[in-house]
């Protein structure tokens, strides 16, 4: 009995906070736009009894999903999101790996401090941190002032409101998600493996490519998924740092909801986004599982 209760807690949690909202969104995505409150029909009318429920279900259709295929804005937005997320993930990896490597090879007494420095930004509001990047990247911002002051450029660079700013924002925001799993695998690595590689004739660089990198593969994969998955649906960063030509599905979703007030189409966009995300999420879970099996 106690076990049932213990297992029930996480399942109830998922049911209440994931499954129920998802069913609501799914239901709205199958509804039609209407000028009313809430702005869609049909509504479930329990007073009408069985007839009411039948009428409700017969009114649901896939119209909104068909609509998404007719306007190329949507699939372009999905594609562009995936592309931006992929490039940003790669950039985060290129920045994050050396940091994780440096942390793992730092003297023992330094590691907690370095770890703290990586996590520290989480303690301030995400929104404020993204806003502060606007102050850094704008034409009158600190970065341009610095570069002009150093005489490197004469005209301020336009970085804010371009895709470059979005990449900078994403790399900055998601860097800890990349660093921590890679650091965890590197830190666990037996130092004698590198000595063995050297003993068997590897140079330091060869030893890195042949031993360190393959052994941190699981950390790299985990870090990439942890950055890639939330980045696809990212809204705040493209909205604040991106320009009008930055096309991301999160922004499209927001505009459908709040500008067009077309809840059914917005919900359909959200459902498709979720379906797209399920693929990398499953791959991520399988990677974690394989890793656990290899260690167990």
């Amino acid at each position, binding site marked *: 009995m106690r076990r049932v209760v213990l297992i029930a807690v996480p399942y109830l949690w998922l049911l209440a906070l994931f499954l129920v909202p998802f069913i609501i969104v799914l239901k709205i995505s199958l509804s039609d736009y209407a000028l009313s409150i809430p702005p869609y029909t049909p509504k479930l009318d329990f007073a009408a009894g069985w007839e009411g429920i039948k009428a409700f279900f017969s009114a649901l259709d896939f119209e909104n999903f068909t609509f998404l295929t007719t306007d190329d804005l949507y699939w372009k937005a999905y594609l562009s999101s995936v592309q931006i997320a992929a490039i940003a993930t790669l950039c985060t990896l290129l920045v994050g790996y050396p940091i994780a490597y440096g942390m793992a090879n730092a003297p023992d007494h330094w590691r907690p401090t370095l770890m703290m420095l990586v996590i520290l930004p989480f303690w301030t509001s995400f929104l404020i941190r993204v806003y502060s990047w606007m102050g850094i990247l704008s034409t009158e911002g600190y970065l341009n002032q610095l570069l002009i002051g150093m005489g490197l450029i004469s005209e301020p660079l336009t970085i804010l409101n371009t895709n470059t700013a979005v990449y900078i924002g994403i790399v900055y925001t998601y860097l800890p998600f990349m660093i921590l799993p890679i650091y965890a695998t590197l830190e666990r690595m037996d130092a004698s493996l590198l*000595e*063995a590689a050297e*003993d068997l*004739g590897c140079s330091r660089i060869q030893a890195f490519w042949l031993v360190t990198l393959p052994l941190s593969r699981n950390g790299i994969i985990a870090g990439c998924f942890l950055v890639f998955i939330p980045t696809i649906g990212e809204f705040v960063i493209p909205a604040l740092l991106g320009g009008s030509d930055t096309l991301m599905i999160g922004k499209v979703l927001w505009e459908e909801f709040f500008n067009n007030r077309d809840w059914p189409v917005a919900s359909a966009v959200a459902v498709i986004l979720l379906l797209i995300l399920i693929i990398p999420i499953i791959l991520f879970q399988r990677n974690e599982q394989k890793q656990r099996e*290899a260690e167990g």
Partner: protein
Amino acid sequence: MNQSVFEPWNDPNAKPLIQFKGVTKRFGEFTAIDNQTFDIYEKEFFALLGPSGCGKTTMMRMLAGFEAPTEGQIWLDGQDIAPIPPNKRAVNMMFQSYALFPHLSVWDNIAFGLKRDGLPPDAIGDRVGEMLKLTRLEKFAKRKPHQISGGQRQRVALARSLAKAPKLLLLDEPLGALDAKLRQDTQFELMDIQETTGTTFVIVTHDQEEAMTVASRVAVMDDGRIMQADTPANIYEMPNSVYVADFIGDVTIIEGTATRNGNGYDIAFAEGQPSLHAESEIDLTDGSRAALAIRPEKVSISAEKPENTRNALQGKILDIAYLGNLSTYHVELPTGQIVKAQAANTRRLSRRSFTWEDEVWISWTDTAAVLLEA
């Protein structure tokens, strides 16, 4: 008998493979190796034995190239190896943790070093096959290290370090992670492989039984110094210091004052006790302090006072350690000194001649004890 004994260290013409020349290694204030000079010869199985922290691992890591001597030189095959980095040395090491690459199969682990040498693929295949056969691992070639047992992992590590046919193989506590039974089998396997390949082995261990079993010479280390380097039999029978006598095997140490008498010395160790006699070639001035080291198996135990021996003492049995085939008796002399005596259990336990609190005589011959400077 045409077979010559393998004793290059006694041959003045033999050329040593490894020479330590006044090697000192310091880590900050701490001196790990203290001005050591010694030679290791080709085809030797040389054991560095000592308690943890005695510097034996540092010695090995200097040979592998992971540490550089602070002072002095190490020569390998007539060449100073200080400027040669570990990846260019004809020295391979078997790590205590085995350090097998977890992402590579057994086959690829063994081939790892060969691939770095840029050998053609079929030469690598042949050599790996040879190594797999030598270590009886053919069936496991495709497995990953986490899919095989501890004993098999140990053999993979050995095969990998032997694959490049090094001039010198270093083994860092190679059997430490195996259980007692497997360890014994593996010791003999190691000796066989060493003989088959003719490679010079240097083994680091804290297990004296292991060192005595496998090695042609054992170097007993303490505090960054080699106290004695000799064959296992000489180390055991003729230790050159109280430290070595005490470190290797079981021993009773009796300290006293030496006076020359005939071919040896009389040792007066306590008032009211007869002085003991030991034959010895060492030079002591009369009245100087000396220590007698007596192995328990050389002490006999009897109920009556034995005839024909100068070394007979009376005492009381304090403790009996039953070891199955043997029993070790701890006999307390009236002075409080405890002497260990060992006797074979030729009779059933219930019919044992002596028991706790029995008054007994212990005795040994003039040549049984080793006289050492105290």
